[in-house]
């Protein structure tokens, strides 16, 4: 299909993202999809730095930096204030990392989702505390190296099913996306923008230093995540069911995805088989594309 992407940039040059940063590229396209009438709320995460130091800002939309645990609550306040001022046309977007979403910001997220606050919560998931130097979060997949899982994350833990948890709050819209599938990414931001109520977008965002990949490979690696079924692209359809929005014609083995990153270099063949089985099991839960 054909669709129009604005040539206006809302993320300006001079930002402090690392080369190949998936979180930076995701912000660029998220804002293009949402437009200039957007307020961004950012808790502690890589983006606290990427946005640039006082008194500069890399964004040409309003930005509120907030403490780690508070993003969804702060965004609730912004939204309610905009309601009292009659500015319902303004979008409010939380832009949080996986630590600020899966872990420390989880309670505020649950509260806002429960109240069905009308804003878009975006988690750009790079699967560890990257801004503090790659420590494990509850979004870190098992087997992955981080500085606090030097031997690889224990297989006793499976990555938290955040989509399932947020779905239990009856959101207006929910989806996964990654910027390496831009059409899918844009369409989902468009749906989130049009939805009334709480919407949640879970983005997989590659982190070259944290995943131990070359910066030129960050899009390639997240494509592999989708094509291998590790990160299925799904959304809440109109019947209230989770449905895949893309299914690869011939899925690749998770081994290809795992071997593309040095953070998984110590996995044994049995480990890889287990991850393969987990990915297949997870994908069974969703309606086909």
């Amino acid at each position, binding site marked *: 299909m054909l669709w129009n992407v604005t040539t206006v940039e809302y993320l300006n040059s001079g930002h402090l993202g690392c080369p190949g940063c998936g979180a930076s590229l995701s912000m660029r396209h998220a804002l293009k999809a949402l437009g200039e009438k*957007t307020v961004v709320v950012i808790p502690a995460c890589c983006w606290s*730095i990427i946005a640039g*130091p006082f008194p500069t800002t890399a964004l040409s939309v309003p930005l*509120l930096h907030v403490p780690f645990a508070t993003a969804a609550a*702060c965004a609730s*306040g912004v939204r309610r204030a905009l309601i009292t001022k009659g500015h319902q046309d303004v979008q409010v977007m939380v832009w949080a990392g996986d630590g600020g979403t899966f872990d420390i910001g989880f*309670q505020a997220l649950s509260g806002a989702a429960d109240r069905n606050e009308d804003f878009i919560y975006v988690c750009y998931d790079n699967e560890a505390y990257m801004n503090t130097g790659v420590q494990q979060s509850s979004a870190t997949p098992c087997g992955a190296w981080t500085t606090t899982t030097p031997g690889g994350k224990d297989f006793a833990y499976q990555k938290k099913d955040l989509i399932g948890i947020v779905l239990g709050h009856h959101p207006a819209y929910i989806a996964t996306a990654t910027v390496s599938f831009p059409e899918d990414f844009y369409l989902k931001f468009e749906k989130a923008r049009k939805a009334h109520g709480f919407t949640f977008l879970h983005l997989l965002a590659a982190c070259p230093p944290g995943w131990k990949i070359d910066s030129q490979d960050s899009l390639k690696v997240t494509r592999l995540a989708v094509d291998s079924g590790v990160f299925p692209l799904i959304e809440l359809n109109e019947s209230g069911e989770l449905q895949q929005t893309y299914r690869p014609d011939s899925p690749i083995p998770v081994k290809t995805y795992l071997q593309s990153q040095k953070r998984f270099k110590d996995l044994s063949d049995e480990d890889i088989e287990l991850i393969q089985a987990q990915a297949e099991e997870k994908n069974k839960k969703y309606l086909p594309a």
Partner: protein
Amino acid sequence: MNFMQNPPAQHTSEMLLGSDAIAYGVKLCRPEVIAAYPITPQTHIIETLSSMVDSGEMPSEYIKVESEMSAIAACFGSVAAGSRSFTATSSHGLALMHEMLHWFAASRFPLVMVNANRALGAPWNIWTDQSDSLAQRDTGWLQIYCETAQEALDTILLSYWLTERIMLPVMVMIDGFILSHTMEQLFVPEQDLADRFLPAYQAPYHLDTENPLSFGAAATPDNFYNLRKALAKTMKNVPKEIEEGAERFSRLFHRRYANLEGYRLEGAEVVIVSSGALTGTVRIAVDRLRDAGKKVGLVKLRLFRPFPREELLEMVQGVPDVLAFSRAVSYGAGGTLAQELRASLYHLESRPRIFDVIISLGGKEVFPETVIDVVQGMGGLSPVNSNWF
């Protein structure tokens, strides 16, 4: 026998709980957003506000958040978007907000928050002391302690006027249960009077897609230092601003509140410094001690942050002994109030002895007789160490 007094012009007279007095005060200030989480003994405040919003009396957005951290965070968001906002809490709730208290003040956003003073556990204790708010003294918030429910109602109005002028948040304290859960006759101002005192909030900066600004971006050490220096400078000017607010307020409402209030200070040889509702008890004790020929006076400390050092100097100059009645302790250092008084008076060549009296914690009862016993037993008190009973 009718104990009720006639209200001043443009006021109604009502018997109200202290908590309701707060709610009426808040309603008069027309906050656009309220966010709150229940905690004893603050609950009546937010229940009454809920009813007012539910019935349509108050056209505010009310966010029933899932924690106190989110209550203050939601207010942070709403104020950042340019709306006058309100929250109330107590004790553990205030402690949970701690991180956000720093963030709020240093962001130079205005807010009025009521804290119903209550002890922190362990063990569980729901009764009044000031450990909760005094532990937050270094967060950049103004702190005002109220003696009566009328004072609390009026202080809400005064605080909104002040916070939006200086762009620093204000914490208003009432004693849990002693003020929150008791009734007194209150003069409730008419809305028109409140509107004349407090115009609608016009945010000097806010989240605006027409003028996109970034708030809170990482600052270099030099920039950070200068921002904090500016905050400290504003704090220093607060007593002067309060004076102006009190003058404006007294012209419309015919009541006036001072940062410090001296009571029976003439020729006093002993001055008790106290804050909050305890002050009412001390007043009675001072009257009785004066009747018995003891030269005892009282200084009521209404403003705690910024600490009204200049005004305090005027009141205790030449007084030989000061009794600081603390309801909070910095363990290993002493009563919070005594520390503040000593720090404020140290530079004087001739300064009073400051007796650190830990008068009550966790709601331990203080009767006028308790105060009289302390004064009459002063010979046995240490001017150096904390005095416990």
